[in-house]
């Protein structure tokens, strides 16, 4: 079978026949839906697991927003569910920090890394490059199951007696290295580190697979410059992950050593709770370098797939080629390179050498140039188009809007002078939630609405889709736009009650508003989840193989493609994927040979 995956176009036909023979025998439920090696099924597994985690992570944020909006109010129901963590119906500080930490970890890694690129890299790479499956379907399956086990370990950490890790999602030592520092620094942190290690394994298996598939298994005629932009985005994402995740792994393992084996990688000169520790000579800042060497590329690991999908969806639905394909490619490449050279902008106020700081200012603000190119190209793609507002299109437009808003505040934070004031304030929270969190979520939603017909052969309910978009869009701005002002006032992150402060106690009403809106937005996401599962079984059926009139290869398969994707030969590619509106024709699929009289671009 895996021989057949190494598609060599010359012998593709022979293999295809071979493949069809295999397609006949019945797969058991286990091998079809559980331990499946079909990239489409694995993609769906990533998506559904990601959705479960998104609900958990989102629920956590609702809980701590309750505390932030109503610090004095008692919610007896919380005590019913969480016992001494919410004594008297009020969220206790340990619980609050556990929630914040888990919210960050779950959303960044489990939802927006695994759930987003895991889903769409798996689904789209073989379908859009014209391959029967991934280079190694088995490793691909392992990738999902490592992710699953990582999830189980993380979930278990929530239920241990001393609670989950609570040192913030960045898990800085010495706080995270010392059991004496708090409840969450006990077994919860060990479980967090183990879970992350498993997650990194999953991510590496996935990433290597994506890279080798894209490089080796493109169908005949599918040169690299004919690849649809989502594939390019996934490719750079995978490269970023493969190069940076091992660094986080080393950081996490050294931290495990410091915690359990008495080493002093990160520890020096510590007196905690009156106890003098023997460690000398370590550097707490070393961890931050290791962490952010992943942590910053991670932002782009999250964002690039969303960018790729948004490019595709905007082009398809404005019935117009993506503007500046090569510039889009170049800017993706520039972002991928720069992503590795900006990590220390998270560390301007750690006592970093000011000269080094200035170099990172330069490199950080440099990244705004390729980002600006992308934005202008998206705008020009819409310009003089003929735009169909499917829910996917709306989410893609919303993505661009959020990416602009959140990207511009990045220019504040990347400038070390301003960062002195804004570092670790609510401004940062607002910034990264808009540009990385909500924007990537919008990319993901756009992808789900757009490729749902390919995944399940049915449509999502449009009306619910439009409601989902509008409430989320308005809600996202209502939640995060005013939050910048809190940051400008200097309110630090992770403050669960500001009553004791003279300087930070002026935003009570605002915090209430944000809490109410976030509950509404959360409810609407549940509605989307309902729509998702309902539509899998009861949605309107897709009746044509190419419902959006798109050029890319996934729409040349059957409505419900089996394992192997194409019956018979894999189609050959003759052109780039963005010939929309050319020579008076609405769209020209990639499989159509270039005509004799066709105009050149």
């Amino acid at each position, binding site marked *: 079978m895996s021989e057949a995956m190494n598609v060599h176009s010359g012998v593709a036909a022979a293999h295809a026949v071979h493949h069809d023979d295999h397609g006949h025998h019945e797969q058991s439920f286990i091998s079809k839906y559980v331990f499946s090696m079909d990239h489409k099924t694995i993609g769906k597994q990533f998506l559904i697991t990601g959705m479960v985690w998104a609900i958990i992570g989102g629920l956590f944020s609702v809980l701590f927003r309750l505390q932030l909006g109503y610090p004095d109010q008692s919610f007896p129901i919380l005590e019913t569910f969480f016992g001494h963590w919410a004594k008297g119906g009020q969220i206790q*500080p340990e619980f609050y920090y556990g929630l914040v930490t888990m919210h960050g970890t779950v959303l960044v890694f489990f939802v927006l890394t695994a759930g987003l690129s895991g889903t769409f890299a798996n689904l789209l790479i073989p379908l859009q490059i014209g391959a029967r499956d991934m280079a190694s379907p088995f490793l691909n399956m392992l990738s999902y199951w490592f992710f699953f086990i990582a999830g189980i370990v993380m979930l278990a950490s929530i239920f241990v007696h001393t609670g989950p890790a*609570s040192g913030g999602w960045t898990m*800085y*030592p010495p*706080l995270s290295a010392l059991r004496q*520092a*708090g*409840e969450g620094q006990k077994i919860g942190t060990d479980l967090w580190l183990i879970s992350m290690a498993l997650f990194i394994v999953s991510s590496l298996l996935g990433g290597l697979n994506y890279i080798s598939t894209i490089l080796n298994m493109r169908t005949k005629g599918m040169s690299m410059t004919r690849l649809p932009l989502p594939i390019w985005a996934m490719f750079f994402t995978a490269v970023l992950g493969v190069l940076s995740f091992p660094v986080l792994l080393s950081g996490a393992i050294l931290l495990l050593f410091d915690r359990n084996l008495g080493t002093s990688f990160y520890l020096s*000169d510590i*007196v*905690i709770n009156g106890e*003098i520790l023997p460690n000398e000579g370590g*550097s*707490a800042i070393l961890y931050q370098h290791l962490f952010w060497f992943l942590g910053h590329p991670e932002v782009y690991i999250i964002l690039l797939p969303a960018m790729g999908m948004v490019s595709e969806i905007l082009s398809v639905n404005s019935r*117009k*080629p993506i*503007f*500046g394909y090569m510039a889009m490619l170049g800017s993706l490449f520039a972002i991928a390179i720069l992503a590795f050279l900006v990590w220390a902008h998270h560390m301007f*106020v*750690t*006592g970093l050498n000011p000269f080094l700081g*200035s170099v990172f200012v*330069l490199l950080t*603000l*440099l990244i705004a*140039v390729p980002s*600006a*190119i992308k934005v202008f*190209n998206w*705008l020009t793609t*819409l*310009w003089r188009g*003929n*735009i169909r*507002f499917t829910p996917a299109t*709306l989410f893609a*437009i919303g993505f661009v*809007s959020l990416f*602009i808003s959140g990207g*511009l*505040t990045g220019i504040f934070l990347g*400038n*070390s*002078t*301003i960062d002195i*004031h804004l570092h*670790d304030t609510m401004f940062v929270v607002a910034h990264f939630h808009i540009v990385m969190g909500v924007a990537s979520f919008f990319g993901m939603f756009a992808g789900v609405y757009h490729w749902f017909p390919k995944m399940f052969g049915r449509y999502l309910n*449009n009306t*619910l889709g439009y409601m989902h978009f509008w409430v989320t869009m308005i809600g996202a701005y209502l939640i995060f736009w*005013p939050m910048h*002002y809190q940051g400008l006032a200097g309110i*630090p992150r*992770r403050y669960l009650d500001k009553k004791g*402060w003279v300087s930070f106690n002026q935003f009570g009403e605002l915090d209430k508003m944000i809490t109410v809106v976030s509950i509404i937005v959360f*409810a609407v996401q549940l*509605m989307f989840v309902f729509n998702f599962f309902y539509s899998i079984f009861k949605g309107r059926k897709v009746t044509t193989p190419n419902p959006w009139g798109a050029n890319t290869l996934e729409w040349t398969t059957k409505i419900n493609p089996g394992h192997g994707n194409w019956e018979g030969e894999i189609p050959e590619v003759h052109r780039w994927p*963005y010939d*929309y*509106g050319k020579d008076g024709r609405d769209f020209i699929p990639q499989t159509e040979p270039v005509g004799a009289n066709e105009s050149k*671009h």
Partner: protein
Amino acid sequence: MQTFFIVAILALGFLITFQIAKASEYVAVLRGYERSRKQTNKINGFMLLAFLIIGLIGVYYCNEKLKGKILGEPASDHGVLVDRMLYVTLAITFLVFIITQVALFWFSYKYQESDKRKAFYFPHNNKLELIWTVIPAITLTILVGFGIFYWFKITGDAPDDAMQVEVVGKQFGWEFRYPGKDGVLGKKYFKNVNPAANNPVGQIWDDRYNHDDVFVEQEMHLVVNKPVKLVIGAKDVIHDVGLAHFRMKMDAVPGTPTTMWFTPKYTTKQMKEKTGNPDFVYEISCDQMCGKGHWSMRGTIVVETQEEFDAWLASKKPQYYVANPDKDPSVKKDSVIASAPVTGAVINR
């Protein structure tokens, strides 16, 4: 009971929304899918335009409502630079924000699907692409230039006449040490830390620079218009000395001392008048997650005139004498003899 009602209302809301959504799909089928799709398209196109207009009004309203609650006048010379940089950046980014958001939503509205229009085949244009590569690059170069210029001013060496204060963060509070008359902070070693023996920061008593160092907790005193250099450390985990009014911030890292310097521009009293708030006080906030008490790790700063400061400092006994009363000249001779056996047991490593 209340919870039950909320859940019931939510469930009902879901149900109704779902029924509407389902019904709309049936209507679409009955009326012809293509026709209802085009109608929805018009509605959404209009909504995008409405979102732009209402959104921009919202941005204005939000600013009117909140602008009085942020920043205030920077209370240090470095703070002036930070604020200037902030407003320059704000002006530029706001302009870009308006242009791009208006373009995004206006194009979406203007070029919504219509039977009369054909999409314009426009795959690339080198001139345009060059323009929007070069313009952001130039703008950013200006911002980087200003930023780095100010950054070096702020992080450069403190002037020679700057006073020094040591700041130490711990779970969950702040400790300060003043160098005393000699102007030099004595050496310390973390294994000497022993609050029970009145040595909370681990001073080495053999070092004579330590003999006049003054130790205080929670409240730091500074002199107006006199540069101050903070020598920052932490005992247990990473903390951060956040001074929102001075626009300054620096991590406190165990094992790796850090520094920052600035010049306070206004006394606490002046700030009370400027802000019109009789309760005004300069606060030190911990800005780096440090454990369950992070949100309440508060210190205060009193900025005062030189005379007030000198009087305050003179009222404090050097920690050396607190820890070794037998060495204290202000303690009567006979009491020293009474405690003579302790003399040999000077606490050091």
